[in-house]
């Protein structure tokens, strides 16, 4: 696997991957598992994917980004398996000669990831319940099991 990882994501590794002498601006994005007041005591999220398609989709997203921003150097990783609250589920780094492109390209990658990546998450709560997350707003209780 190139883009998917069951190990914790290292933003330093991604930054090193995109660094280049001619790129003066690097924008990075980290998506982390929230446990806010509205998140009902989420202790971890279990991420699963349609692995082969997620890899293909990420490869397409990276290719599209390079086509739109030919000088951009792009790296992205999505984590799978159990991810604890405050750990990163997705990490993106984009380096470009000028900063406006770094922001735009990094934003493009995360928006496409959210829109297209065949990845699902089950929120695990302190009370033992588990819920499939439907970002369209219809959570479905599936536990305690």
């Amino acid at each position, binding site marked *: 696997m190139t883009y998917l990882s069951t190990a914790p994501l290292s933003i330093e590794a991604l930054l090193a991957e995109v660094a280049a002498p001619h790129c003066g601006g690097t924008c990075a994005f980290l998506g982390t598992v929230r446990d806010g007041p509205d998140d009902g005591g989420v202790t971890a999220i279990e991420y*699963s994917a*349609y692995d082969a*398609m997620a890899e293909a989709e990420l490869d397409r997203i990276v290719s599209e980004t390079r086509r739109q921003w030919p000088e951009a150097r792009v790296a992205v990783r*999505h984590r799978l398996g159990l991810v604890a609250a405050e750990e990163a589920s997705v990490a993106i780094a984009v380096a470009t000669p000028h900063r406006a492109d770094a922001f735009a390209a990094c934003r493009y990658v995360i928006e496409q990831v*959210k829109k297209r990546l*065949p*990845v*699902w998450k089950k929120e695990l709560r302190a009370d033992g319940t588990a819920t499939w997350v439907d970002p369209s707003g*219809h959570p479905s209780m599936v536990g305690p099991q």
Partner: protein
Amino acid sequence: MSRVAGAVGTVRIRFFARYAELAGRSEGTLSVPLPATVSDVIQRIRDEWPGTSALPAQPLAALNLRHVRLDAPVADGDELAFLPPLAGG
């Protein structure tokens, strides 16, 4: 069978996440008369595999690792996957 002999395709079906739980299975192989669209295959799955009626009638679908619309044509050897609302990132 009374059906006029025609091309028949074998399609690999995959269910993910909540859909695998609803369908009671994560994959299977299905023979479908061709030509057929993704919608045709969905109908056939509902007819042939008990339990899959819990799946939505118009799920998100991916054909050979790409998102497709439900009117996309399906060919012999294809892998057709049904995807619950995406939640990556």
